[in-house]
């Protein structure tokens, strides 16, 4: 129990000791500032994005609310209700197609995302055009179109030129710079083209069965409750296939990415803070070692354990508070400075605002980490007795502290994990990340012990190589901080190396492996009347090695066993949004039956469903369960009678949901085809099909792979930057460790020089010492990274894994170089002092 008198003495003593300044805590403070600052900055940016999405939700969405339908427009009942709840409404149709230019010697085709608008668009905000004119002004003439600069460049067309969309011709009137609802839109495969819906009537692009999305943007009276309207929409129309969202989450795609990425970055920031904790612990130990005589004097004067503990705990708490406050300040200010850069990366006009939550989160982490890592060395103060004034004594490195300190440490660790799970609202991520980090730390710690063990053995054996022997002896001694150095640099390298291995394997799969198995083209919107001719054309090209086709409709799974799908399956991707649905007479070769039986040929009975086996397991459904699917407003209920394997990894045709033909073949639908062609034939096939069938859309899979690869690359790059902060912290800890050992190195150097060692002998010794330490850290880091990346790539991403040797070697060399540079800098300082000068000062 802390008595008031004891506490008063401890505070007095702590403040008096701090009068001499805090220069001895530079590394302590820097580690804390960096860790807390990173977490604050990430959290502040996330809050800014959330604020922007919230404040500009209507603009991002293009209205206060939106009702979306796939494959169809809203029916009369739906339109009536939407009009009844809104002050204004705009209809937009979105779909993919080919923009074609075939005149004056030009023959170009390019994929485009078409946005067909009505006269009310945009309800909120303005479309920015290169000419500066308004959208209404530009599209007022018939057959007018505007497109993004990227598409115009691909087609090599200028303003005033004519191009085709399907069977209709359009004139390019202006170039789009930005649309207000761009950020809220989904991932698009091609640059945008905007035309008036009425101009597409003759294009043949909106024939029944064409894959398009109809969106109804609504301007709603501010006094109306959006949440209540959403509930009514869900109740009335969820089963008809309407999807509702409102301005409270105007850009769900961005929201989700930001939430997931920021959770990851905060975990990485926390990892950096933990690495910093190693530096904090090391700095505290170093500081307390300097205070041994003071502690011993206080003991001789009658101070108790608790008085001494509280004295230094209060001191370190004050310094931690300074570090945390500085970190919070820097972390809160930095996003403001980098806001313009952020706007380039994230397509939102981000407004960085003051937000209490990221500051609280970072402060809590900072406080817990600094307390956790100071507790252990502080507890060792109890071992310092008054007799230390007569005998050399240091804070014992080995041995556990007393039980109560172990309990406190455990409590702090649990609090840290709980805080992390609470703040990022992702207990699973917290658990896995913490587990991975704990395993990495343990591996490095055990590696350090193993290294010291082997070095001790080796030291006895080495003869005739004094530089090597000095290096090894120093590494196995307590002063060198071998464990701390390995932990510091190893953890940062491990995080970076793991990201690099995962990213490398993902990119290899996407950029190298996938193109080898993926089709050349994905062709959509082939009408039933066209499919036979498409087959004939494809068969006529020798360069086409194979092709696959399937009928395709799109629908939403609304019920599972008569209960709402959202209640049964939660947020599973299969029931989220619309799904591709097919039918077949016989099981195609691309599927393997795992359970049940496919309907017989010419089956005309009740609707039967064949479902993806893996997805069924995830949803907890199987043979005998019923699904209700809404296709173009029509409900179809069927029983699952078979399960099959669906392989998406080849980027070929893969449908989770299939039905017997009589259930679907009379519904308006189109066909899709995947074409596998030799590279030299791809263009010819593309031209032949697109000329013959202007309404169909050919998607070059290689372009999609590149686009996805770019996106993933950006994420990996950003993740690497995050991991880099961990490495920087580790480097600082390393500097601290190197600095702490300088006195010992100076002593050794002075004695050795007195005995005849040259500077060259000593420098070689230092090089061996630091290279060995750095290389060990690198090897352990890459070992951990390979294991970690293998398990994530194999079990989470379900991709083949190969060691990316180039990054592995870079990690090992990086660890070696970093440690060598840090160590040599301080070591060479020791060589500058003459032996007499140093020894006299002792």
């Amino acid at each position: 129990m802390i008595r008031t008198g004891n506490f008063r003495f401890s505070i007095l003593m702590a403040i008096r000791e701090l009068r001499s300044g805090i220069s001895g805590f530079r590394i302590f403070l820097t580690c804390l500032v960096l860790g807390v600052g990173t977490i604050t900055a990430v959290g502040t940016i996330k809050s800014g994005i959330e604020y922007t999405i919230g404040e500009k939700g209507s603009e991002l969405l293009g209205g206060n609310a939106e009702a979306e339908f796939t494959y169809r427009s809203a029916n009369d009942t739906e339109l009536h209700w939407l009009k009844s709840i809104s002050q204004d409404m705009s209809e937009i149709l979105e779909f993919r197609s080919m923009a074609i230019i075939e005149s004056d010697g030009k023959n170009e085709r390019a994929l485009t995302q078409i946005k067909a608008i009505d006269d009310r668009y945009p309800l909120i905000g303005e479309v920015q055009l290169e000419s500066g004119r308004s959208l209404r002004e530009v599209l007022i003439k018939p057959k007018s179109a505007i497109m993004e600069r990227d598409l115009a460049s691909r087609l090599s067309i200028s303003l005033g030129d004519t191009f085709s969309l399907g069977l209709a011709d359009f004139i390019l009137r202006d170039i789009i710079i930005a649309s207000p609802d761009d950020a809220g839109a989904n991932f698009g495969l091609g640059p945008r083209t905007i035309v008036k819906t009425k101009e597409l009537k003759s294009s043949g692009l909106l024939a029944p069965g064409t894959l398009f999305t109809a969106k109804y943007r609504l301007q709603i009276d501010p006094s109306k409750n959006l949440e209540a309207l959403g509930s009514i929409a869900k109740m009335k129309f969820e089963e008809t296939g309407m999807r509702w969202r409102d301005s409270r989450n105007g850009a769900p795609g961005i929201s989700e990415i930001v939430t997931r990425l920021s959770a990851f970055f905060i975990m990485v920031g926390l990892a950096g803070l933990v690495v910093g904790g190693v530096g904090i612990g090391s700095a505290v130990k170093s500081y307390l070692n300097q205070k041994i005589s003071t502690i011993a004097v206080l003991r001789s004067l009658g101070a108790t354990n608790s008085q001494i503990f509280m004295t230094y705990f209060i001191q370190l708490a004050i310094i931690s508070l300074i570090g945390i406050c500085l970190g919070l300040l820097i972390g809160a200010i930095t996003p403001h400075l980098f806001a313009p850069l952020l706007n380039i990366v994230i397509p939102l006009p981000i407004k960085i605002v003051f937000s209490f939550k990221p500051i609280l989160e970072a402060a809590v982490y900072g406080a817990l980490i600094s307390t956790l890592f100071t507790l252990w060395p502080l507890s060792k103060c109890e071992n310092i007795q008054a007799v230390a004034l007569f005998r050399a004594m240091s804070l014992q490195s080995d041995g556990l502290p007393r039980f109560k300190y172990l309990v406190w440490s455990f409590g702090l660790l649990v609090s840290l994990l709980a805080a992390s799970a609470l703040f990022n609202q992702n207990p699973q991520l917290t658990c896995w990340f913490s587990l991975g980090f704990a395993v990495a730390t343990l591996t490095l710690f055990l590696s350090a012990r193993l290294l010291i063990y082997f070095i001790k053995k080796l030291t006895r054996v080495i003869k005739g190589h004094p530089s090597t022997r000095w290096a090894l002896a120093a590494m196995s001694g307590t002063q060198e901080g071998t464990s701390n150095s390995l932990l510091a640099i190893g953890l940062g390298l491990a995080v970076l190396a793991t990201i690099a291995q995962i990213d490398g394997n993902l990119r290899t799969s996407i950029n190298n492996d996938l193109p080898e198995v993926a089709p050349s083209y994905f062709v959509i919107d082939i009408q039933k009347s066209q499919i036979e001719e498409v087959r004939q054309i494809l068969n006529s090209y020798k360069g086409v090695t194979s092709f696959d086709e399937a009928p395709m409709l799109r629908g939403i799974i609304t019920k599972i066993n008569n209960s709402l799908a959202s209640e049964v399956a939660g947020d599973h991707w299969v029931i989220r949004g619309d799904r591709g649905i097919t039918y077949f007479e016989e099981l195609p070769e691309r599927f393997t039956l795992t359970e049940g039986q496919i309907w017989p040929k010419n089956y005309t009975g009740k609707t039967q469903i064949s479902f993806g086996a893996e997805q069924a397991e995830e949803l907890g459904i199987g043979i005998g369960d019923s699904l209700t699917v809404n296709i173009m407003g029509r409900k179809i209920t069927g029983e699952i009678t078979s399960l099959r394997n669906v392989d998406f990894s080849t980027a070929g045709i893969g449908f989770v949901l299939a039905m017997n033909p009589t259930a679907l073949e009379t519904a308006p639908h189109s066909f899709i085809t995947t074409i596998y062609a030799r590279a030299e034939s791809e263009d010819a096939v593309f031209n032949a099909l697109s000329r013959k069938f202007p309404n169909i859309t050919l998607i070059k899979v290689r372009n999609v792979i590149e686009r996805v690869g770019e996106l993933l690359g950006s994420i990996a790059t950003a993740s690497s930057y995050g991991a880099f902060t961990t490495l920087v912290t580790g480097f600082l800890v390393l500097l601290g460790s190197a600095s702490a050992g300088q006195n010992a190195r100076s002593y050794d150097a002075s004695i050795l020089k007195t005995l005849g060692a040259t500077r060259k002998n000593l420098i070689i010794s230092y090089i061996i010492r630091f290279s060995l330490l750095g290389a060990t850290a690198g090897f352990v880091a890459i070992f951990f990274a390979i294991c970690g990346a293998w398990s994530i790539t194999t079990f989470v991403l379900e991709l083949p894994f190969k060691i990316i040797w180039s990054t592995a070697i870079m990690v090992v060399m990086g660890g070696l170089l970093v440690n060598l540079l840090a160590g040599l800098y301080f070591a060479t300082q020791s060589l500058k002092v003459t032996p007499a000068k140093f020894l006299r000062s002792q």
Partner: protein
Amino acid sequence: MREPVISLQNVSLTLKGNAGNVNIIKNVSLDLHEGESIGLIGPSGSGKSSLLMLAGGLEQATSGKIKIFGQVITGMSEDNLSKLRRGNVGVVFQSFHLIQTLTAGENVATPLEISSSKNPIKHAMVALDRVGLSHRADHYPSQLSGGEQQRVALARAYVSNPQILLADEPTGNLDEENTKAIIDLLFELKNEHNTTLFLVTHSNALSTRCDRVIKIRDGKLL
């Protein structure tokens, strides 16, 4: 006869090292009475400082019994030993061992602050004045000469009016002039407070002023 202030009975001290055990003190018995001054002399490494530390409860004996004010202190916890020392035992070291981050006044006040005494600074100033250094109260040890530092240490040792004063070569790091001054001050304070003074010294000038002189060699009293 009154009970000794400090009593050592068959006390031994063995330290464990990497090269094996070292017997520092071997079966020593010694009584120190109230108000007397005892000088401990012996060659280097004979165990003088260790015996002094044992007597003051600053070191734990390996075997035997040590009593201070009739209370057995062998086996006592560090915290209880610290509490016992408060106000009862003052210590003066050869290397002064002032806390470098505290002023002279704060150094002297520290024992009083540890025991939560009232007006520690006021009493500290009185103690500093007694040793002639009240004008240096705000100076740090690095700003004081060796002799001045030892006088501050003396003031610190006596500020709580202890019954026992342990001094380990208090003049070992001082020149001749300061040595004489410190010796005079040491015995003046001892007489003023009727303190039992137990000191280790190489100095004849110091040992001859003691009531008793004990010799030690190889951890045994001669």
